[in-house]
């Protein structure tokens, strides 16, 4: 077994037992990257190998000196390219930020650095996190390691595919409407969107501020808890970050789940879902009986309105968040000397891709005078109703389980020209963002040789018990150990 095949926890354990060094682990993933990255294309930037290895050596030195470090010290990882890294390109996969190097580190980047993890590179994504297939990257498409003709999902498609392809032990993504969970589902990895406010957004380049949340993408549930332990916690630089006592999520793993009550919302199993996906999820849930977990059907009637609600709230905020890319202070500027308005127009027209423009226009329209009440304000009201749906179910149930995505990974090009079909890909994930509740996707089986994700949604700040349940279920599912087989470089031409 190659070192890169290990989970972060396995690698960290080996490191602590001094069976391997951080240098070994880092060399291993760099080797893996050199083998498969040309096919997967999950990175936008891979840092200079020498520097990365030097970092690993430095951690080895500190560990050898007996310095107290986090459980994941010395473990190589990647960040989605919408998280600021000081002096290092942070592009949001957009032409408009292609040359942009932030002068500061995102909160999560700081936390991971303090923890001694090794940042290897920045992951590909849909431009400004808008999309469900990573086909909206301005640079190139990322491929799904399970079938390179298929998309890895999005928008954190790079982060998910890198973990699935063993190019990295774990990564961070961001989730505005499913952008961590849906690619996790399509790539067969674990992806968590925490409660809104659990992780600081400071340094996360905003798409829709009231929905955005950073989350880990990992090889299994334990790794997810370990990463969450590092990045969760209050940050005074983010006013929406919630001040509360820091929990130890890894401490929940292995605890008894008997007596948990789970609701299966009818609305998530009816329309739009592919039958094989539904079947795999239901089979996974069949294990609950032996765990002593009660499962009942529930109803969340406002789910129906989630998609339109989401596309009004998210685009409205995006239209404002992305207004700053105007060619004045930083980033791409179209050549235009004479006229300010023309400078704005040309810069934004040439700098943004079609999906970003579509959403900016949609959001601008929704906020315009005369339409605000009918669209934006109404969407806010629907958002409240959706939140109430969750509150009601959570009065009686500990967790909600749904499929993560209505389909398995789809073929590249299949949906890119039909935005509405593409938007439906997030239909089961956006409600958690609208309600601000935590949700996790774990792989629960294969359908047609492709991974299927099972989504577990919890009460606000109940990540601990969600992980507790997922950790137990994961053991019974038998997905663990399944790995995609990535074709050799030679086949690339035929496949693409």
């Amino acid at each position, binding site marked *: 077994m190659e070192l890169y095949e290990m989970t972060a926890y396995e690698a960290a354990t080996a490191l602590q037992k001094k069976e391997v060094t951080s240098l070994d682990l880092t060399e291993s993933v760099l080797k893996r990257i050199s083998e498969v990255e040309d096919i997967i294309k999950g990175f936008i930037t891979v840092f200079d190998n020498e520097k990365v290895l030097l970092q690993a050596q430095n951690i080895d030195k500190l560990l050898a000196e007996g310095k107290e470090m986090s459980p994941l010290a010395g473990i190589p990882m990647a960040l989605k390219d919408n998280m600021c890294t000081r002096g290092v390109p942070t592009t*949001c996969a957009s032409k408009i930020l292609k040359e942009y190097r932030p002068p500061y580190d*995102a909160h999560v980047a700081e936390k991971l650095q303090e923890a001694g993890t090794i940042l290897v590179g920045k992951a590909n994504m849909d431009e400004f996190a808008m999309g469900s297939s990573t086909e909206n990257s301005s640079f190139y498409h990322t491929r799904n390691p399970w079938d390179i003709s298929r998309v890895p999902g999005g928008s954190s498609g790079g982060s998910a595919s890198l973990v699935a392809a063993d190019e990295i032990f774990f990564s961070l993504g961001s989730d505005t409407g499913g952008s961590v969970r849906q690619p996790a589902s399509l790539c067969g990895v674990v992806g968590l969107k925490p409660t809104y406010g659990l992780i600081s957004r400071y340094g*996360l380049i905003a798409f829709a501020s009231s929905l955005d949340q950073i989350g880990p993408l990992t090889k299994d549930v334990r790794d997810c808890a370990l990463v969450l332990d590092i990045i969760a916690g209050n940050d*005074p630089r983010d006013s*929406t970050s919630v001040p509360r006592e820091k929990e130890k999520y890894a401490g929940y793993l292995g605890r008894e789940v008997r007596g948990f009550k789970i609701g299966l919302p009818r609305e998530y199993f009816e329309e739009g879902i592919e039958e094989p996906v539904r079947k795999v999820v239901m089979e996974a849930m069949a294990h609950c009986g032996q765990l002593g977990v009660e499962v009942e059907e529930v109803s969340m009637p406002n789910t129906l309105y989630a998609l339109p609600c989401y596309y009004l709230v998210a685009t*409205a905020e995006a239209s*404002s968040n992305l207004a700053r890319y105007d060619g*004045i202070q930083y980033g791409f500027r179209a050549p235009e000397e004479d006229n300010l308005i023309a400078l704005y127009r040309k810069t934004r027209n040439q700098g943004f891709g079609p999906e970003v423009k579509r959403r900016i226009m949609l959001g601008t329209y929704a906020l*315009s005078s005369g339409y605000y009440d009918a669209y934006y304000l109404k969407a806010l009201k629907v958002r409240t109703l959706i939140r109430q749906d969750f509150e009601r179910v959570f009065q009686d149930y500990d967790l909600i389980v749904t499929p993560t995505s209505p389909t398995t990974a789809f073929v590249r090009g299949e949906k890119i020209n039909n935005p509405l079909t593409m938007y439906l890909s997030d239909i089961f994930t956006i409600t958690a963002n609208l309600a601000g509740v935590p949700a996790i996707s774990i792989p629960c089986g294969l359908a047609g040789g492709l991974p299927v994700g099972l989504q577990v949604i919890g009460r606000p700040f109940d990540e601990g018990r969600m992980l507790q349940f997922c950790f137990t279920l994961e053991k019974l599912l038998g997905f663990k150990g399944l790995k995609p087989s990535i074709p050799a470089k030679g086949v690339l031409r035929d496949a693409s």
Partner: protein
Amino acid sequence: MPPEYEVVIGLETHVELLTESKIFCSCPNRFGEAPNTNVCPVCLGLPGSLPVFNKNALELALRAALALNCTISSYSKFDRKNYFYPDLPKAYQISQYDKPLARDGYLDLVKDGRLVRTVRIERLHLEEDAGKLLHSSEEARSYVDYNRCGVPLVEIVTAPDLRSPEEAHLFLELLRKVLLYTGVSDCKMEEGSLRCDANISLRLAGSDTLGRKVEIKNMNSFKAVQRGLEYEVNRQEEILKAGGQVAMETRRWNEERGITVEMRGKEEEHDYRYFPEPDLPPIVLNEDFIGEIRSKLPELPVQRCFRLIEEYGLSPYQAEIITSSKNLADYFEETLEHYPQPQKVTNWLIGDVLGLLNSMGKEINQVTFTPVHLSGLLKLLDTGTLSGRLAKEVLEESFLTGKHPEEVVQEKGLAQISDEQKLLPVIDDVLKENSNAVSDYARGNKKTIGFLVGQVMQRTRGQANPQLVTELLKKQLDRVEYG
């Protein structure tokens, strides 16, 4: 008979708050730094940065709101005002739209101790300032200085209650005084820490509907506000008298030419697409907190002015000058604690003390001449140690050196000579040397005594007690006359 028009004016004032740091980041709130040196990712609006609300800005805004008799909203929130301009790095300004911090206040316009008008304050809200564009005429290009980005502002909007350009001027003066008293702002129009736009319309006298209004911008002093409005009154009156209609538009005051010029018409107005700022929680205030801020408010200028008139018998004119700044009024009342004679203190403060301050270009709190010094000086006058003229000399010296008046008197030997034994020899000398004057006096020209007193004063370098000298001289002269 030609129609009579009534002028209707409302003001929108932007006031920079005197906080240590900016409203949403920890950059210092300072004026006059080299361009783009007082900035950080947050006030530059860099991707990924987030605002954190400065509680000190809230406190100052609340002080202003309470001083303007506003109702404080227990729930208010920030909104984004979206528009593109190079001095606005996020392309939106964090402001407050439909739920401002405070509403429904008023400011009493008082002049010469008389209430001229009560001007309603419609709203007061918090927002961040934008940067500044610097235009280079030589290069035909513009530069942006982001230093001012994120400086905390309150916008204060009046109802259309002002009825003349003079009233607008008076309103701004009084508003400035209130904000200075409460420590909300330094209100320096020349540094842009107080800025004012005006809405003005005319209507037929007696009408209660509003006319078509024009907004005027770029008036950079109180005087400019009055002049701009005066120009606009005339311009609109001419249009209306000629049977025309005033265009709803924004006009810019041109200081050099003394006119307003069209900036943009109504149809070019922005749709700011306001929506709630998702990066900041709403501002929720309870009564206790508001009460705490209220309890820390000082007595406001108008109230204090009336109280000084009532309590100390000052004239409205005197009271207005004394209350022109909180420091001066504090100084006045503190002096009275040591020396409870309001008229004397007032006369010295308004006369010599303010005169010296003006010539030094300083404020009363910037000199070492304290109320203890002033009361000490006045006591020296009362005891006859100093004459009025000497007192002025001592005042100046004490002002410059910070020494107590008594110390100055001792050091310089400036004390008034009231000792007969010291004065008599001088008087004898003067009488001997001015026999002509003495005989004039004897012949009944009593006025000559003034000349002789002057001679004594000269010989004592002004230190002789003039009353005593006069008395002694009379005694001597009468003795000559009858003896």
